[in-house]
């Protein structure tokens, strides 16, 4: 493989940045690992949203801006349904709703717009975003709701013998990481081993060729949007249990965009790795770089995690436009 020096330079700069707090003694090892773990957990959540995004882009070429709105919608549905029925039933019902939603989106939005340019489809998903935001809050209400997964939230100290003060971790966080890993494994199996998965991959490679060998495009799209809806549901439930279900969830889910940029639009592995990089990167930046910036420029508070992910993705785009795992795009006239 040809060496790509700018990418290596950027990667090296990031690694040095990561190591700097430890090297300069700005933080103790225990605290550092705590921040790192916190970043990884956030990263897993970003990965989950990005996953749904990458799935849809891979199979239908649609840049689905509405993934964040779908996360919010699914989380609201679960939260409100769980008030009436047990949680597991609420999740089942919400899954059914997401499948219905996928079907409606395919029928009403995608089918009439088939063969349109990518930008037009992006705009259409923007419309879907607005609609879902409004619809979700009209139907389910617009307060802050809670999803209780029934797991103890109090943090546990581990490795107290190894470090002074030990490390604070959350039991729920571990469960979340397990769920995410399980979801990725399940999706990989589904894509690689089932007939439907094969059809999905065929569509992703070439719409026309897939159609000409008898794969029904419309069905495939319903399936892929349903899967993305389910992934959104999982992401929504997990986020909802940690942050509470509220409108800001949709905004946070926008962070999935830099994640897919970093990982490559069409790659499932990319969504996961990108999510972890962004999660760790922005936590680290917030905790260690933030105070330095505040001091240097006399800022009114930190909050650089709001833009760090985007700027990181921007820098990355400059040196490697196709992302970490994306396919290289060649233009022909």
């Amino acid at each position, binding site marked *: 493989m040809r060496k790509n020096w700018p990418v290596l330079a950027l990667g090296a700069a990031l690694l040095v940045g990561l190591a700097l707090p430890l090297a300069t003694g700005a933080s103790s090892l225990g605290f550092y690992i705590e921040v790192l773990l916190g970043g990884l957990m956030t990263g897993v959540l970003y990965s989950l949203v990005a996953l749904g995004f990458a799935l849809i882009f891979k199979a239908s070429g649609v*840049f689905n801006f509405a993934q964040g709105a779908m996360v919010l919608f699914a989380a609201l549905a679960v939260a409100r349904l769980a008030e009436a029925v047990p949680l597991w039933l609420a999740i089942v019902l919400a899954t059914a709703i997401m499948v219905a939603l996928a079907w409606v989106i395919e029928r*009403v*939005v995608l089918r*009439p*717009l088939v063969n*349109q340019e*990518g*930008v*037009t489809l*992006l*705009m*259409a998903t*923007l*419309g*879907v*975003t*607005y*609609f*879902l*935001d*409004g*619809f979700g*809050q*009209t139907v389910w209400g*617009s307060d802050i709701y809670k999803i209780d997964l029934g797991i103890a939230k109090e943090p546990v100290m581990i490795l107290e013998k190894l470090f002074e003060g030990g490390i604070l971790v959350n039991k729920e966080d571990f469960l979340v990481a397990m769920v995410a890993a399980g979801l990725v494994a399940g999706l990989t199996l589904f894509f690689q081993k089932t007939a439907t998965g094969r059809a999905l991959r065929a569509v992703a490679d070439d719409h026309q060729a897939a159609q000409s060998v008898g794969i029904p495009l419309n069905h495939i799209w319903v399936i892929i949007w349903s899967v993305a809806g389910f992934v959104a549901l999982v992401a929504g439930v997990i986020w909802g249990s940690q942050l509470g279900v509220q409108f800001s969830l949709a*905004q946070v889910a*926008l962070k999935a*965009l*830099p994640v897919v*940029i970093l990982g490559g*639009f069409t790659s499932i592995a990319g969504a996961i790795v990108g999510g972890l990089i962004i999660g760790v990167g922005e936590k680290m930046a917030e905790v260690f770089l933030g105070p330095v910036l505040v001091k240097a*420029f*006399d*800022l*009114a*508070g*930190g*909050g*650089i995690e*709001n*833009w760090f992910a*985007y*700027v990181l*993705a*921007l820098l990355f*785009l*400059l040196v490697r*436009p196709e992302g970490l795992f994306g396919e290289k795009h060649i*233009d*022909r*006239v």
Partner: protein
Amino acid sequence: MLYRENGQFKSTYASDQQMLPIAQDRVFMVLLLAFAFIGVPLVTSDYVFLSLLIPFLILTLAAIGLNLLVGYCGQISIGHAAFMAVGAYAAYNLVLRVPQLNFLVVLLLAGLIAAVIGVLFGIPSLRIKGLYLAVATLAAQFFSDWMFARVKWFTNYAHSGSVQTAPIELFGWTVETPVEKYLFLLAVLVVFTLVAKNLVRGHIGREWMAMRDMDVAAEVIGIRPVYAKLTAFAVSAFYCGVAGALWGFVYLGSWEPLAFNLNLSLNLLFMIIIGGMGSLLGSYFGAAFIVALPILLDQVPIWLGVPISTATSAHLALMIFGALIVFFLIVEPHGLARLWAIGKEKLRLWPFPH
């Protein structure tokens, strides 16, 4: 019958290339301008000025800016409110720190500063395109949100982070009443529309359109992508910077950092989709639509006599908004401007369509 160009012969190149080649169009334009400058101030109430016409004029200017980039040059941006913010804060600081400057100079300088920032965030467009660029422009959006909220210098160390402006003064004329604001904005908008119209029908506009239609082919026939794309970003950000300064000084008067958030960016994008991409007229239609729709949606339940809480009506408005966007994309991807063109075409043949 009335709208027909029979007998209007073009005997010089100049008359062949003029902006409105049909005499009836020229008459219509003069009448329209006369109505806008003289008729509207006579019949319109302050409420309509403040809640409809003033935001309409400013947002039209911003929409033209975005349309130059997205509609003409094909580079998508979902962060254009950032350039409006740059323009607004640049103007605020210029007025604050160099009070002797004429406001028109301030306006142009604010636009220029926005243009510089626009070029900066346009640089990625040289390597990436289409949807990737959308994310790059989001970076501009979130970075500017953060910067203007956190860096105290920009807001002159205001405690709440919000800034206040005095009414603007031009050559001893204080633009204060709604009518005065309207006239000032209208004049600015007319000038900027004229400039934009001439840009897009000149060589630079043609380069933009060539980039939009197929960038590799455009490069092959000798159009420099660096130059074409970055000028589009610069001009577009300039327009949005000016619009942002006007939005802050004339419409809002005092504003908080979040006045220029992602929502405004998306609204600008909707304006040009609904109005029509690659059409200056479309920017007008789109801005009018987006400004009028929420007000209309607020009024409808009152007319129908169905009381709806403000929260519900806000959510309903979101839904209708989203549904309309999808509807427009499906029914008429080229927007309202396209409908207007079709109407004109029909009118030329009317009443004998064959």
